[in-house]
């Protein structure tokens, strides 16, 4: 009964929010939304996790701000390169005017993108580098500055640890360019006083919580002194951090990306762990918004945004409280991202909870 009521309330709120958003959109059309009508497709290489669900919903929300977009399509490549390529081809064949593409497979999707571009579709790949060049293979690539993330983390580490110390950097699959860029960013601000104790260039976790747990427990057992853990996927650490308790040690400072489950974990454990400071950069769901703005601007004859690279802003800082103190929303699912522009309730709906 209670659940049903909550659901009704949530639906009502969601409807109101959407209604409100629609009114605002009608009231003031953004400058990137031009007068020419167009259709838009969002193509995902892999859509099966909460980050992607929130990102996809954000893309749809952004496109809905422009009344000139008459048709909106979405396709999920399901982690299958062949399907991702055939999705691109079929959208182009259907005469979609603009497509925003998360090219997970990297350069493998470039030929399909190039064909669509030559056929006159506005193609905007984002976040993952697909190779090629703007104007030849596609209209515009909207990257994300992982280097900047590294710089933000590095600066914070210098603040809390002016005398230097031991850093443990965890990233995803071996050799992923995101981790390498982030490391370069950190190294640009940190000098030799700061020692990376992980194997070069980063400890491999595949962004898998279970592997992260194993890697972390091995590193903790090996190193008596870990001052800061840096990770580019904060929520995957939630399962692993309690390992410190096994060794009777405090969880150290953490520089990472945000997630509701991580913030709530910090809330619950900060008192028992005196060294546990938390610093997060936005996890970057809004990267898709910038890409949608570019695609819509080019397809409808609007004014393109000034930014060409999405720079994830600093989100939480448990030490200074600026720009935000750590915010936990226990009433909302752990798998949403409070840093995203999308409303919290809408995100909860997007991840199906």
């Amino acid at each position: 009964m209670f659940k049903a009521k909550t659901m009704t309330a949530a639906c009502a709120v969601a409807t109101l929010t959407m209604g409100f958003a629609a009114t605002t959109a009608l009231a003031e059309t953004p400058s990137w939304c031009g007068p020419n009508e167009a259709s838009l497709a969002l193509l995902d290489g892999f859509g099966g996790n909460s980050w992607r669900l929130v990102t996809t919903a954000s893309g749809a929300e952004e496109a809905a701000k422009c009344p000139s977009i008459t048709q909106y399509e979405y396709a999920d490549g399901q982690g299958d390169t062949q399907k991702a390529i055939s999705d691109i081809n079929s959208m182009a064949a259907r005469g979609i005017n603009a497509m925003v593409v998360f090219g997970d497979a990297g350069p493998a999707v470039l030929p399909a993108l190039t064909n669509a571009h030559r056929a006159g579709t506005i193609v905007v790949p984002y976040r993952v580098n697909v190779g090629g060049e703007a104007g030849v293979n596609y209209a515009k690539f909207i990257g994300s500055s992982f280097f900047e993330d590294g710089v933000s983390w590095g600066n914070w580490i210098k603040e809390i640890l002016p005398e230097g110390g031991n850093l443990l950097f965890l990233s995803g699959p071996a050799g992923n360019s995101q981790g390498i860029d982030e490391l370069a960013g950190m190294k640009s601000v940190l000098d030799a006083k700061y020692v990376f104790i992980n194997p070069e260039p980063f400890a491999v976790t595949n962004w898998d919580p279970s592997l992260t747990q194993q890697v972390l427990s091995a590193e903790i057992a090996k190193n008596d002194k870990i001052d800061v853990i840096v990770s580019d996927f904060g929520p995957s650490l939630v399962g692993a951090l309690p390992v410190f308790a096994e060794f009777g040690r405090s969880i150290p400072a953490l520089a990472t990306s945000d997630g509701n489950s991580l913030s709530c974990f910090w809330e619950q454990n900060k008192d028992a762990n005196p060294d546990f400071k938390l610093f997060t950069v936005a996890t970057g769901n809004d990267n898709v918004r910038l890409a949608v703005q570019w695609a819509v601007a080019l397809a409808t004859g609007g004014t393109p945004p000034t930014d060409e690279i999405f720079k994830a802003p600093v989100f939480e800082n448990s030490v200074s409280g600026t720009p935000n103190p750590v915010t936990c929303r226990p009433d909302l699912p752990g798998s949403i991202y409070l840093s995203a522009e999308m409303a919290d309730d809408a995100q909860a709906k997007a991840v199906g909870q």
Partner: protein
Amino acid sequence: MANYQQTAGQGGLAFELRSLKPARGFVTVVISTLMLIVVCAIFAPSAISAGGLAGSLPFAAIIAIVGLGQMLVVQQGGFDLSLAGGVSLAVVITTHMSGGSDAQLFSSIAFALACAVVAGVVNGILVGVLRLNAIVATIGMNALLYGAVFAVSGGVPRITTPLMAQIAGGKTLGIPNSVLFALVIMLIVSFVLKKTVIGRRFEAIGANPAAAHAAGLKVQLYQAMAYVFAQLHYCVAGILISGITREPTAFQGDSLLLPSVAVVVLAGTSLLGGRGFPISTVIAAFFLNQLSQFALAVGVPFSAQTIIQALALVFGIGVYSLRWKQAATKRALKSKMEETDNV
């Protein structure tokens, strides 16, 4: 070597080893594990420290449980590639259906077990009764199970319930509960396989289905049941993962397929079917897990970690699959013949 007594002594030992043949896999895996522990103590003491083990043993327990499941299928000359889907489905059912609430935990676990039985029965009918190739049938089942994983979860991870975290992630008398689960399952499997009529028949059918059929045993039924019990093992492993890992992904089973086969092979179970070695399988799981912990503790690059694990697998297959003695005799014979030819 010239000493006759010594030679006689060695002959005696060899004779004893032959008479204790079932222990061969056990001896090899125990010696390898002890050697690994010594190597760890010298080069990477942190890998065998109490804290290090507390962190890594639960994962060894998981590998042990899926390994025991895979062993049952391998004993019947089969292969179960639906392991990944089975484990992942159990993970998402326990995390999603319970919705983070302890009250619904046990009903969701019951549902997960029911799903495992259904998947196992279908596998069993396809392979045991309809005689489909095990690899083909179970790979299809894996795809179906992943369909169910997406239907339940949408691919989204969810945080486990506090009770589940306590059950699977907690400790009793300083031992991780997951390890206790693995040990209890091992004892049950060992007892049933080695001390009950059903178990003896199961092994006999694995060793020679034609002879077993001639002896009047229900070969199809036993072969089919291997898949059902294998799925139940995967399901238990998945349920435990949902407690050990606080926010498990929907694809947690993927990384377990290779280790499951590796421990079965390392423990000495023939890929052609026959005897199973549950205790050796569990020790092999500890060995394999400790090996990756060792690689992590030494701090070798990721590429080297993968290579070390692959070498362990090759070593395991090498020890059991090749007939070293026969090969040596053949070689000796050949060189002798060559010598004669030259003369």
